[in-house]
């Protein structure tokens, strides 16, 4: 029989039992749409995080102190007190293509202004920090080289801190605030930078000269991080490598010793963050994929019932000249039509649900073509695999036995 006729006969047979066909398809529809929706949500979230991290600047390189090992006990990032301003100077002198560079000393502290108070992150940086992060100043100005060398008690507020202490749209420059009970003079307010990749508010912070944070707030000589920008995005990788070399020399690490610092580009950070999400997406898609198998078993079940019900029809067809292969193909095509139709509807439904998520919860979704092709391929394979046994059973019937079946 020609493939066209076989398909037409299959469609006719399925149309005769619309309810049953629809219910059988439902298994495939649910499985495929669940896979598509989940992959769409996962990929959308991934794309958003990636975009946000890259928005921080693709030419950024961050060096964190850490990987500290003492007597076999390894500390995490920031655990080691090994980085100093000397490292910053060495990098500035020896690594080519470094545009701006700043040390970073972070702590938390209670900030008080008048009768308001707010706990926030206190970041000690150098003067080039706003240039590295491409972070505009809203009111006043960032601190100067003199402020840094003199460890002046001056502060530049993040927008959130300024809003909390002085109210929105108020210029607080010139006011005195108390940070950990020490008076600081507000000399500027940063523009809004919004949420970071993982959702924390980047504006909930206060900047002061790193020297001030080291001496007046923390009483120590070390720095926790170094942030620098490469002169162009393409040089970022080379700069990161060169930084590693300089740092190892600075810290007098012998060959074979592990780094006591971590160098990361913005690209690396994006990768790490999205890799976790990728695992999550695959896991969810895998769970949804299980329902595809369940759907396939549903198809097999119904096809077996159908073969039994239509034993007489099979007998008639064989009596008038259908070969085993003709009968097998007829039932196989029925199973494939169910699974492909179910898969197609499932894909459409998956796109629909992803779209709804975007519309109503403002959740970014992105269904990759790869997932669509895979879902479709999977449903076709399901039809073939789970349709094969019932079709085989039908084809193996003895003509006279089938014909006499009541």
């Amino acid at each position, binding site marked *: *029989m020609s493939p066209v006729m076989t398909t037409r006969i299959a469609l006719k047979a399925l149309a005769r039992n619309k309810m049953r066909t629809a219910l059988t398809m439902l298994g495939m529809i649910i499985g495929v749409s669940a896979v598509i929706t989940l992959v769409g949500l996962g990929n959308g979230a991934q794309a958003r995080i990636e975009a946000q991290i890259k928005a921080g600047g693709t030419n950024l390189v961050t060096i964190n102190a850490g990987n500290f090992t003492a007597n076999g006990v390894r500390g995490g990032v920031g655990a080691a007190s090994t980085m100093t301003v000397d490292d910053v100077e060495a990098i500035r002198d020896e690594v080519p293509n470094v545009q701006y560079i700043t040390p970073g000393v972070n702590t938390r502290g209670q900030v008080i202004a008048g009768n308001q108070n707010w706990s926030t992150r206190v970041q000690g940086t150098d003067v080039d920090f706003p240039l590295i992060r491409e972070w505009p100043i809203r009111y006043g100005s960032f601190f100067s080289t003199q402020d840094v060398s003199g460890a002046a008690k001056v502060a530049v507020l993040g927008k959130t801190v300024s809003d909390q202490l002085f109210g929105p749209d108020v210029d607080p420059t010139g006011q005195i605030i108390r940070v950990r009970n020490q008076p600081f003079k507000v000399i500027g307010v940063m523009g809004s930078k919004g949420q970071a990749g993982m959702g924390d508010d980047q504006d909930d912070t206060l900047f002061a000269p790193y020297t001030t944070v080291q001496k007046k707030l923390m009483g120590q000589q070390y720095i926790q991080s170094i942030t620098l920008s490469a002169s162009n995005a393409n040089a970022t990788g080379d700069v990161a490598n060169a930084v590693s070399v300089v740092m190892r020399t600075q810290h007098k690490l012998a060959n074979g010793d592990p780094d006591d610092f971590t160098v990361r580009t913005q690209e690396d950070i994006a990768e790490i963050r999205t890799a976790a999400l990728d695992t999550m997406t695959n896991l969810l898609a895998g769970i949804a994929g299980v329902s595809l198998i369940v759907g396939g078993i549903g198809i097999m079940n119904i096809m077996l019932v159908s073969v039994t019900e239509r034993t007489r029809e099979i007998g*008639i067809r064989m*009596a*008038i*000249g259908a070969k*085993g292969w003709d009968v097998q193909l007829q039932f196989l095509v029925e199973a494939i039509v169910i699974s492909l139709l179910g898969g197609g509807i499932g894909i459409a439904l998956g796109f629909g649900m992803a779209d709804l998520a975007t519309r109503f919860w403002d959740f970014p979704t992105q269904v990759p073509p790869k997932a669509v092709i895979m879902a479709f391929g999977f449903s076709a394979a399901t039809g073939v695999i789970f349709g094969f046994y019932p079709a085989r059973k039908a084809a193996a019937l003895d*003509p006279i036995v089938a*014909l006499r079946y009541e």
Partner: protein
Amino acid sequence: MAAVISVRDLVKTYDVGEVKVHALRGVTLDIEPGEFVAATGPSGSGKSTLMHILGCLDHPTSGQYLLDGRDVAKLTRNELADVRNKKIGFVFQGFNLLSRTSALDNVELPLLYTDKSMKTAERHKRAMAALTAVGLADRAHHHPNQLSGGQQQRVAIARALINQPSLILADEPTGNLDSRTSVEVMGIFQRLNAEQGITVLLITHESDIAEYSTRIVSFKDGRIKDDHPVTSRRDAQTELALMPVVA
């Protein structure tokens, strides 16, 4: 001329649990081209079993069966399907039409398994011609459940004829029909036999129906009891002309 059907010592034994049922106990029979043979006998005499074997639907336990000189035992499953498709036309007591399928589609069915490249239009044309030959052209798009028993049997005959077989095997074709319709159906067989020279093997337990044939082979307990030509053959056409017309 070589026999269409030639069987030697055909034995068929069914294994039903511990009991063995001997349906055929050694049947030897030759049917020449153009013959109209009626196989008669009470139920259980083995005539239906013989038909299933002759129709390549079933295998004998032992014995030889030559169809047009070919040994059927040596044919593969697919070759047997081809024989059923092209050489033999079946007419059953229970019609065996596909339900919820139009008369036209039922008649076309064997063609689907004959020639994959045949155009739909050509198939329709041939099926219509076959339906016209049995006088059912105006019922082509009716489903079997919309047709009377006689009409259903005529659809089945049209289906049996579609591939111009040389042999028609009819298993109790009038078993489910009233007497007038039975005569009509027998008339069709007589016409096909006379005009197209198609060999007909008719299985029936009604002796009056057997008289439409040219030769009666009667069976008893799986053996041929008697084999004789019909002396006073009935003619369906003349009988129909004399019958009162039922409105």
